[in-house]
């Protein structure tokens, strides 16, 4: 009886897992098809850039964003990036995505690049944020040179300065 039950449970779990995998795969494919119109992964997926899309929503009409004349921070990348533009639902503006054609370093070299502060995806993240500001406001907000008094050379202060220097490039985006 126990073995029958175990068999049933195992079979059921396998079935659920298979369904979940199928459903998950389906959901992933559907999301990707929405995000990447006309760019569904195919048998040649091995050549697809490993970099995921970095996306911001720009509060501008779709017609106002000319992919042939992108703001300078993105235009400077030329053919190094792919760009997607899509109207956001519910009048939230236009989704503007970008990703590197050359996969960024992964594993240890990727982690090392992040520590060194030269992760190419971080630079692209900053470029997207600046492009959004240019499209929405017309210029990028500056903060430096900011008036301040004497900076003491404390360990905490130096860490904060290092974090702040990279704060325009880091984040969840």
């Amino acid at each position: 009886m126990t073995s029958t039950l175990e068999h049933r449970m195992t079979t059921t779990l396998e079935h659920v897992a298979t369904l979940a995998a199928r459903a998950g795969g389906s959901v992933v494919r559907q999301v990707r098809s929405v995000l990447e119109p006309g760019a569904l992964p195919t048998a040649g997926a091995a050549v697809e850039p490993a970099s995921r899309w970095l996306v911001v929503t720009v509060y501008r009409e779709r017609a106002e964003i000319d992919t042939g004349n992108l703001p300078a921070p993105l235009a400077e990348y030329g053919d190094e990036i792919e760009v997607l533009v899509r109207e956001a639902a519910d009048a939230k503006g236009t989704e503007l995505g970008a990703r590197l054609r050359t996969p960024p370093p992964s594993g240890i070299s990727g982690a090392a690049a992040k520590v060194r502060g030269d992760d190419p995806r971080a630079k692209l993240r900053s470029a997207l944020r600046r492009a959004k500001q240019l499209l929405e406001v017309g210029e990028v907000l500056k903060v430096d040179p900011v008036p301040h008094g004497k900076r003491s050379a404390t360990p905490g202060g130096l860490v904060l300065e290092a974090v702040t220097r990279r704060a325009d490039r880091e984040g969840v985006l």
Partner: protein
Amino acid sequence: MKAATWRGINEIGVEDVPEPTILNSHDLILEVNLSATCGSDLHLLGGYIPAMRSGDVLGHEFMGTVAEVGSGVTRHQVGDRVVVCSFISCGQCWYCDNQLWSLCDNGNPNPGITEALWGQSIGGCYGYSHALGGFAGSHAPYIRVPYADRGAFPIPDGVPDERALFASDAAPTGWTGAHQAEVKPGDVVAVWGAGGVGQMAARASMHMGAERVIVIDRFDNRLEQVRTHIGAETLDYEEVNVVAELRERSGGRGPDVCIEAVGMEAHSPGPQYIYDQVKQQMRLQTDRPTAVREAIYACRKGGTVFTLGVFAGLVDKFPLGAVMNKALTLRGAQQHGHRYIPEILDLMSRDEVRTEHLATHVMPLDQAPKGYEMFKNKEDGCVRAVFTTQN
């Protein structure tokens, strides 16, 4: 110019800093007339928000006179008397257009810090750490105001400086709490904290038609201000059982809306306070949520709890069971001041909002260290120390 700066934990300095310049076309340079201390500054002073660098200019609640305008500024001219919202918001993104100004996508040049902390970045704030942009604060003779057409508001003739000053932060923060908590006619509203923001949340709740507004604190002079200048009821939490009193005053239901205007350094009698202090000092939690816990416990079933005091990170022993089982709505926000300041200035011009009593101690900027000490320790009945900067 001389400015009041953060020198380290519990250390305020007055030192020379360069004068600000226009960096973006939408900037203006403001000659600061008055600049207030704020309870949220104490979190910076105490080191609870570890994103301050020595030399950072403090201050985010201020008013003054326009000294210079950038080429893109169209609504202000040199010589205009204005009050400036403490939050820096572009006015062009989806959040600003939907009146959620403190959530601005573009007002914080350091979005990576708060994205790492909270998952999303919010707008910038003057003199409030590098996590909120690293902008210089207003405890100085001059300050740069970005997005000036959006963030600076003309002060109506007849509104004195000492009143208009608090249209920068305390009053619109109070309005944000009451409005976003959806206070409506007939509500019983309880407000934890009788500082400037708590008083303004109470005043806003009354303005929005609340039947009873009850403010909770332990300092007699603040509670007296609430009764005298705001017209709300008071409770001294060291003298009474707050939850039982609130039940009695709300017909046994509990307040419809509970607004917490205390923040991450809450105080309470009893062992709970010691527990929270120990955990906070050991960095096992970043914030002390004592007043939030009590607000959740006191709130009526199906009511709303609004966290208006500043919190930075993580809290312990959060009563999620009460939130879920009592079907509470839990909300919070920094101030969406751009939305409320014009209305507040209008009410100020008609004497329907009075705030000058908050400025209990007005002093020259070079006395900022003393002012902060008095404010922090509530010495001599200090509710807010306010600095004059042009002397």
